[in-house]
């Protein structure tokens, strides 16, 4: 059913940008809500997954967990998580945040694990030989060496969480998803405008973390 294809004219995207201009405060507040939801979830996921991944990687344990979590993370559909959260946590911010946290954890955990697990064993052994404690080995040697991979994991997670935050609108999650699912009220131009804003948020976040990734990659290569 190609209902909307006929509405398309060359002006659709122009209209979308006009829509953003005409509804600047609405777009701003919806974008803000999306960011709030996504970044809260990302922060919680980071706080949970990073220490666990680093610790497991440092002990070279839990390979199966790290691999399993990453596959399971990819396999879990966001709408199933949100629907499940709805039945357990009810509608609202926390349901959506919890769903997004679950989605955000795997890439961070897996990459942190492999970053530390794969850190140059010679360097680690040298550090131990020089009398560094395990904690110091992890924080001063393995963490800096693995930083590029860790940042790459955060980047994947961030993109994933922002994309999913939009879908949270089906469960009253607010944000730009509200506009995207409501063509009746906002029109095609509004839907496209909302989609453009979400994409912009995701792209900017990815870009920023990409720059961080480049910076830390360069510093570790320079060090090595």
């Amino acid at each position: 059913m190609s209902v909307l294809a006929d509405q398309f004219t060359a002006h659709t995207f122009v209209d979308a940008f006009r829509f953003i201009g005409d509804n600047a405060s609405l777009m701003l507040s919806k974008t803000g809500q999306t960011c709030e939801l996504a970044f809260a979830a990302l922060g919680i996921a980071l706080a949970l997954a990073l220490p666990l991944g680093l610790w497991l990687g440092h002990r070279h344990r839990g390979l199966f967990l790290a691999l399993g979590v990453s596959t399971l993370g990819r396999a879990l559909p966001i709408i199933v998580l949100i629907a499940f959260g709805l039945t357990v946590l009810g509608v609202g911010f926390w349901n959506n945040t919890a769903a997004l946290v679950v989605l955000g954890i795997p890439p961070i955990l897996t990459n942190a694990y492999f970053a530390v697990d794969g850190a140059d064993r010679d360097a680690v052994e040298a550090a131990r030989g020089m009398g560094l404690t395990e904690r110091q080995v992890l924080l001063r040697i393995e963490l800096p060496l693995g930083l590029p991979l860790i940042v790459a994991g955060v980047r994947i997670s961030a993109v994933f969480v922002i994309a999913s935050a939009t879908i949270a609108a089906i469960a009253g999650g607010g944000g730009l998803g509200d506009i995207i699912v409501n063509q009746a009220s906002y029109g095609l131009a509004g839907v496209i405008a909302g989609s453009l804003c979400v994409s912009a948020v995701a792209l900017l976040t990815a870009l920023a973390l990409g720059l961080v990734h480049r910076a830390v990659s360069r510093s570790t290569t320079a060090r090595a």
Partner: protein
Amino acid sequence: MIPVLGGSGPVIPSFGSGSSCEQNNGWWCTDWLREHWGDTLQPALVQHIELVAIAIAAGFLIASVLAIAGFRYRLLDVPVGGFADFLYTIPSIALFQLLVPFTGLTVLTVEIALTSYTLFVLYRNMVAGLRGVPEDALEAARGMGLTRVQTFFRVELPLASPAVLAGLRIATVSTVSIATVAAFVVPKGLGEPIFIGLDQNLFKTEILAAGGLAILLALAADVALAWFARAVTPWSRA
């Protein structure tokens, strides 16, 4: 004025009552599963597999062409890889909507979006696989008089295949998952029963059954591809 519709009143038949589990929105109503496997879950599963299979096949084809180009001509790698990364970054629901003006609320819209998502992983893994072929093997191949084409098919391609297959696994699992969102655009796949379950005051059995099927499908595809990869790359086990 409203036309008067005469005649006798309707006969309201018994539609059969749902089990108490169904009526009370239970977590796992086996009666429902038994009754609706054939008319709801099974067709949705088949549609889901179709959606994913087409997207993966198309993505694999496109990524292969791009990867060979990006591998041969390094200049292409940055823009092509960057574009695939860019596509991957656009949230799925946004990409669906952005495509609607061009392709409408059709399966095509869904397939284009799903295919776009596979490109990033497939392309990166293919290029990394080809680049990761050991230099000494290539030098030996050249020194032994293998032509470029022979070197590609006999040495580079097989040696890249573990990375390519790993990418295929990741892409397939992700696509099975993302395809549930396709029900926003077309009433197809395992997303559809989930949306219906949400609409019916959160009918848990339907949501869990369809969602569980999606997860199982993803994991089954992962295991099958892992098994396939082991079978076709016996040397990597050595």
